[in-house]
């Protein structure tokens, strides 16, 4: 057995496909459009990528741990609604309201995880149930409380100034306003990547996703690890929901639907296997970046945004094929 060279090693990294994709998409739109590389243009696609990327990096951890969460998209709306209802209807300050919303998100995440592990059902089904249930609660509760399908008026809530500064302000860089969500995205990616690669917990995430029985046999707490991953995903969705409600000051009850697949697509583009045990947090962040650049690039190029879906579909299929080839190489077929 010979030791593979550094180039070979690099080619076997899960995020290499996403990096290549990001470079290609970046180069293409930089050449094809004028606005894409302008500071204002950069801010639009970084902003788009950040809202996606914050949850995508958590979803990547969850997928590496061998599970899915289809309720993460709707959760961004649920958490925004909880915050909005508590503060605009019950008069809560703009700090304790999101804090209560975070507790709600973590509880739903824990429930998701507990149900998956308790029943042994695929998380795809369990969180599909959570997705539908949350969607119903979002609409039902909003209509009960407001008589409409949206909650607004966040701006006049006490504490809005400081909370808005932390979650929804912009930072001027060279005359262009960059949303602070980009910093949150970078922070989430750094934390998640560190946890995955450099902590015992991260090692166990790989193990519970790659071979759960082997993990259990050496004493890895499978249940706790997976429940924490579901909670982290819900927590990331809460962060996006909080950023949204503080930035737009209102929330529609039907928001967030469809985002769950975008998170998964970003994670898969980033090298996560659908079967778990392999993937990359930085890859998922790059996947979100590809997503944001393509979506905004198409707008800058004045194309019909319908083409974005085509692009996305092709990209997803290509990513899955690359991932599968990688996996076969990594797993090996030797007896």
């Amino acid at each position: 057995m010979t030791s593979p060279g550094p180039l070979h090693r690099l080619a076997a990294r899960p995020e290499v496909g996403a990096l290549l994709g990001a470079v290609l998409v970046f180069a293409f739109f930089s050449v094809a459009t004028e606005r894409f590389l302008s500071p204002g243009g950069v801010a639009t696609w970084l902003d788009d990528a950040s809202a996606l990327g914050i949850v995508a990096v958590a979803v990547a951890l969850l997928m590496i741990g061998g599970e899915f969460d289809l309720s993460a998209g709707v959760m961004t709306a649920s958490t925004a609604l909880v915050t909005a209802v508590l503060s605009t209807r019950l008069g809560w300050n703009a700090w304790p309201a999101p804090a209560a919303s975070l507790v709600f998100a973590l509880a739903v995440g824990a429930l998701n995880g507990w149900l998956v592990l308790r029943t042994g059902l695929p998380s795809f089904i369990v969180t599909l149930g959570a997705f539908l249930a949350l969607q119903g609660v979002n609409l039902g509760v909003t209509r009960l409380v407001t008589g409409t399908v949206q909650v607004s008026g966040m701006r006049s809530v006490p504490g809005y100034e400081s909370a808005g500064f932390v979650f929804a302000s912009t930072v001027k860089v060279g005359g262009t306003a960059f949303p602070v969500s980009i910093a949150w995205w970078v922070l989430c990616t750094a934390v998640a990547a560190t946890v995955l690669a450099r902590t015992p917990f991260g090692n166990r995430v790989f193990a519970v996703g790659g071979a759960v029985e082997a993990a259990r046999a050496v004493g890895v707490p499978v249940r706790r690890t997976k429940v924490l991953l579901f909670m982290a995903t819900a927590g990331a969705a809460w962060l996006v929901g909080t950023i949204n409600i503080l930035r737009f000051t209102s929330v529609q009850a039907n928001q967030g639907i469809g985002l769950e697949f975008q998170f998964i697509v970003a994670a898969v583009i980033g090298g996560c296997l659908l079967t778990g045990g392999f993937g990359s947090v930085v890859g998922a962040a790059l996947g979100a970046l590809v997503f944001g650049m393509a979506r905004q690039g198409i707008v800058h190029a004045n194309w019909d945004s319908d083409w974005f879906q085509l692009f996305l579909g092709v990209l997803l299929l290509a990513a899955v094929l690359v991932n599968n080839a990688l996996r076969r190489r990594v797993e090996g077929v030797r007896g």
Partner: protein
Amino acid sequence: MTGAPLLEARGIGKSHGGVVALRDVSVVVRAGEVTCVLGDNGAGKSTLIKVLAGVHRPDRGVLLVAGEETRFASPREALDRGIATVHQDLAVVPLMSVWRNFVLGSEPTRGFGPLRLLDRRRAREVTRSALAALGVDLRDVEQPVGTLSGGERQCVAIARAVHLGAKVLILDEPTAALGVKQAGLVLRHVARARDRGLGVVLITHNPQHAYSVGDRFLLLERGRVVNSHMKSGIGPVGPAAGMAGGAGAALERELRGDAG
């Protein structure tokens, strides 16, 4: 051989819903010895190791760890008493690197409290040195375990159990589905673990493999012990009888060849 055996089972009986899986089975595991459990499929081998490893509680009979009567509530408890089991299939996580597998479940850390990080350098060193101590030559601990051969994977799992302080090593069919060369590799490392003073329980249905490293032999048939003896008491004609000579000779060569 003096002193209490590391692990002893006396008169073990176990039934699964009316079906008798084990009846009056006794087995002794001593430090520096390999106890081989032989038998066909369904003879009760796996039930016996599950009793020894703390997965099943026996209906009858007693377990003694270092001469002290013990009841294991869980495999974890058995592990804490130094009884480690290496299963045939679920020993390692194929997609993870050798060193990540090696430290899994007992990762070395540095730093304090919630900021404790995985000490990757130490994890790699520990992996390298523990593998080297058992004579497993892996140039690259960074490669995924999936790229190793079946024999090498077993060796990694065995080395890990030894490293984690196992006193008794229960190996469930470690050589099943391996070729002669690969099986020889695994058995060589079983012998090395034995020489380091571990007690080994080797479950196999291959008498040749058992005879090449075993000190005690237990032949199970439909849950009963039909033959139990020490190596000295019986020649190579014993359990190895009926084996094809060619494969046996090749295995012996493989074992001797690199044993130094």
